């Protein structure tokens, strides 16, 4: 999550901090010290983080802009809690928040997902003596409760500032380290950005789910089978101690540290499972399914950055036993060798996926809907068209007839059955001379059956009972008998 550091540079920040027997510090210096610590931490442990710096007093200025697009933000506001007075002060702005026009909206909540961390260059007592703390808390509330206020414990000094920033780092900037496993093959990796805890259903089990630090690969599947599944978030998977990989991702961070470089060079020579995995997935056009926790899975895959560069990435599926309906239950996926016959066929020309649902959806099962007259008319027309092509179309004629009969019985629309029966009788009278004698027999039979069904008596109106073609025999033998 990219970070914006918002630094208070108003006059009150230059207030001196009294520390016995040492050189004089201003609150500004303490803030700078804390931020330096944060930036150093990011430079070593959180290299891919993007940061921007904004300073403000009564005006503001963007000192360092972002270099990349962002979706969600972390905002670190550094202030001494002196909120100023009069127009433009936070106190005034909060008081007049409801009087603002749409074009001059209060900046909070931000129009993007964000976390607001407020680092106070003051201790709690100092803030509580005025209404500053309340105002700052309002800010967090306005940001939908996303964020936190940090204050200095004890007297203002470098050490206590450090411990305050230490808490922020622990909360928001700890790198996520994990062990990627595939059977006996393992690799230490950093997953970036940190996967955030996920709350499945507030009602049943509101405990946020956190992903395992052991990421176990459970199998591999074709990209075509998994077919661009929906994911909660995407993360880079970077082998740890492999600075080269980090560069490849495009952080552009160079290390001056000689020792670290040589350590990285050695690491670069040791075969790493991540490299093997990334290469294999790319070549085979597959993804690896990885277990993130109980009933929680994700996938590892090669993502092309440009024509030349590609990275190993991990996407998280929604937790649950069946995150992708077309694959069925995750636990039911097994090795191909366990199947009686290869589900992909001998020539690898078929696939067991997508799985068919037990109950077909309405659009796959030819349901009957007569809400619009056109739906009903189309169904009647189909019967009529086939009626005129009897006896060739006997099977289709009865199929359509039975479909209409079933729906009419379910909807209690018996008048329709009678109407269609009349129509078939009329068709019988309109048959041309050249018509096959069977056509007349079948039409009369069908009309009769529909009429019986339209009485609604159980005997003739059973839903599961179909009207079957009249058995006729116009072959030579019967003609002789006639």
């Amino acid at each position: 999550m990219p970070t914006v550091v918002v630094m208070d540079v108003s006059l009150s920040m230059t207030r001196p901090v009294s520390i016995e027997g040492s050189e004089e510090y201003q609150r500004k210096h303490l803030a700078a010290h804390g931020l330096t610590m944060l930036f150093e931490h990011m430079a070593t442990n959180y290299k891919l983080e993007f940061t921007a710096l904004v300073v403000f007093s009564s005006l503001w200025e963007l000192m360092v802009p972002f270099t990349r697009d962002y979706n969600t933000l972390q905002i670190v506001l550094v202030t001494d809690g002196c909120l100023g007075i009069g127009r433009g002060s936070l106190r005034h702005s909060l008081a007049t928040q409801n009087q603002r026009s749409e074009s001059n909206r209060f900046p909070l909540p931000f129009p993007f997902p964000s976390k607001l961390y407020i680092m106070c260059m003051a201790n709690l007592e100092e803030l509580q003596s005025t209404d500053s703390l309340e105002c700052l808390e309002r800010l967090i509330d306005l940001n939908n409760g996303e964020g936190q206020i940090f204050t200095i414990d004890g007297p203002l000094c470098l050490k206590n500032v450090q411990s305050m920033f230490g808490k922020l780092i622990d909360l928001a900037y700890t790198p996520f380290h994990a062990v990627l496993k595939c059977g006996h093959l393992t690799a230490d990796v950093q997953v970036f950005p940190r996967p955030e805890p996920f709350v499945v259903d507030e009602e049943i089990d509101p405990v946020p789910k956190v992903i395992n630090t052991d990421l176990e690969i459970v199998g591999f599947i074709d990209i075509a089978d998994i077919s661009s599944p929906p994911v909660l978030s995407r993360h880079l998977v970077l082998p740890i101690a492999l600075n080269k990989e980090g560069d490849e991702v495009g952080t552009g961070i160079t290390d001056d540290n000689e020792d670290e470089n040589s350590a990285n060079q050695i690491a670069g020579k040791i075969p790493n499972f991540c490299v093997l995995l990334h290469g294999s997935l790319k070549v085979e056009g597959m993804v690896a399914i990885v277990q993130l926790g109980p009933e929680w899975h994700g996938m590892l895959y090669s993502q092309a950055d440009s024509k030349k560069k590609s990275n190993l990435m991990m996407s998280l599926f929604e937790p649950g036993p069946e995150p992708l309906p077309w694959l069925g239950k995750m636990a039911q996926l097994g090795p191909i060798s366990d199947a009686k016959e290869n589900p992909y066929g001998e020539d690898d020309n078929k696939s067991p996926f997508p799985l068919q649902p037990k109950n077909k959806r309405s659009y796959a099962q030819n349901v009957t809907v007569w809400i619009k007259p056109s739906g009903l008319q189309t169904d009647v027309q189909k019967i009529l068209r086939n009626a005129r092509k009897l006896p060739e179309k006997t099977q289709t004629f009865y199929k359509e007839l039975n479909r209409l009969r079933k729906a009419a019985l379910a909807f209690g629309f018996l008048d329709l059955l009678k109407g269609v029966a009349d129509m078939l009788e009329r068709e019988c009278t309109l048959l041309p001379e050249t018509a096959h004698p069977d056509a007349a027999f079948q039409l009369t039979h069908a009309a009769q059956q529909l009429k019986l069904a339209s009485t609604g008596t159980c005997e003739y109106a059973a839903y599961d009972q179909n009207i079957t073609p009249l058995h006729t025999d116009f072959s030579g033998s019967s003609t002789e008998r006639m």
Partner: protein
Amino acid sequence: MKIFSESHKTVFVVDHCPYMAESCRQHVEFDMLVKNRTQGIIPLAPISKSLWTCSVESSMEYCRIMYDIFPFKKLVNFIVSDSGAHVLNSWTQEDQNLQELMAALAAVGPPNPRADPECCSILHGLVAAVETLCKITEYQHEARTLLMENAERVGNRGRIICITNAKSDSHVRMLEDCVQETIHEHNKLAANSDHFSLSLMQIQKCELVLIHTYPVGEDSLVSDRPKKELSPVLTSEVHSVRAGRHLATKLNILVQQHFDLASTTITNIPMKEEQHANTSANYDVELLHHKDAHVDFLKSGDSHLGGGSREGPFKETITLKWCTPRTNNIVFSSISELHYCTGAYRISPVDVNSRPSSCLTNFLLNDPRYKIDGSLEVPLERAKDQLEKHTRYWPMIISQTTIFNMQAVVPLASVIVKESLTEEDVLNCQKTIYNLVDMERKNDPLPISTVGTRGKGPKRDEQYRIMWNELETLVRAHINNSEKHQRVLECLMACRSKPPEEEERKKRGRKREDKEDKSEKAVKDYEQEKSWQDSERLKGILERGKEELAEAEIIKDSPDSPEPPNKKPLVEMDETPQVEKSKGPVSLLSLWSNRINTANSRKHQEFAGRLNSVNNRAELYQHLKEENGMETTENGKASRQ
């Protein structure tokens, strides 16, 4: 949407009293005359649906859309009410589909207009609806079992959609009171009964949706009323709707409200014309889906909102332009890419049977596929197990391995990782080993990497030692899989013989293979962990191994000297395993093959052709010689007699 919100349970209560048999007074022309046949024929009179038919088909449409988008966890209970309540299905997932409901409705049939109206009432159905809402669903049961002591956190909410023909506003109030009273009674009963905790639950929240429907052209006796809280448990709303398509439209709007649906219209889909198959025109198809699908659109501020859709003026639809995929055959396409996807949503076409809709859905649906039978064991665990076996010995880079660069090793390497071996597998492994022995004897070069070594790299015999070591590591990693795996190792140990003193010399002399040995060590460590229990058994095997080793050494005792240089192509070795008793020392291969052959020959009758063969060749069609030439020519083959 929470799992156990009001939408988890929907009860339809449809009035089946005599007055519902009345016509909705909206005519349907069903006898549309086809062109060229119109002369002199008067079309049949239009028919009209009854209030009952309108109610049933509208509620079926509601269910159709709901089932399409929520095939699980959103349940419907269908009740019809006349002189009593008829509950048509249950909350179980098996009962949740259109076919079941249609069949049950057909069994009920249309209302009987001649029934005594005094006996019939919608109240029976409403009481039954409250009862059925108290019944626990399998999902609620599952959640409660899972939460154990926190079972009370599982909610029980529901919705009753009642379609009736009410007499007046006070009649509607009476129905509401009845529902409220019944809920109150049932909840009171629940508080005092143990039985409730098992299969019945108190109702926490009930949404009553009363729909008064009446024939088109009549004045409504009931007025609309927005949602109102009647008690902390019950809210109620009243809709007064004309029957026919108006009722269907109302239920379509309700299903969207109840299940948070939104509409998307896919525009400009090219489709072949029904009449002229070679031309194609563009069509639009409107789909319903969960409204979350639109969240990102709305966030991005890029509103594709196309205003009111054609289907109804009440809802907005987002329009998307169709983009034909690069290949029609999406599934079999070899070009497969992963695209970033933030959501996938189930859809339901608004107009399911229209041609454009079915064209689109048929294009998207693939041919029916089959499902893999799940075995008793959890397949995913079997998959992990297989990965474990396959990675027991897995050199990560090419230069670290010899055997995986050798085609000759493939038959062994591909089967040794299996959980169990067949006799045939063992035989193939043994053949592979003999083949390698043969290669060693012929001094064939090995694909040993010389990267990182100075000069030409290890000598040939050293190369073979490395290769044998690696192969042993691979096989040893799997000896605990089965007794047959052990047999492969035994064979390997018997075949890879090396003079002990030479071994010693090498150990002293070289440290170059440390790298190879490291990987072996990892596997051996693993093995030790796994196999210490079996150490006794193992010892026995090793003893046997040593014996065979000794045996092999005896054979090899007269080694490289006079043995006939093996110039036979490798294939022959597999195909002609019988050994000609010939001069010179017997090779290990022939010794082994003899043993196998003798063992095998005891199991079957020898093929007659082989028995009569001369120099391993048998003449075919010998009987033809004895018979006269006539028959042979008759067979259409030139006789050479």
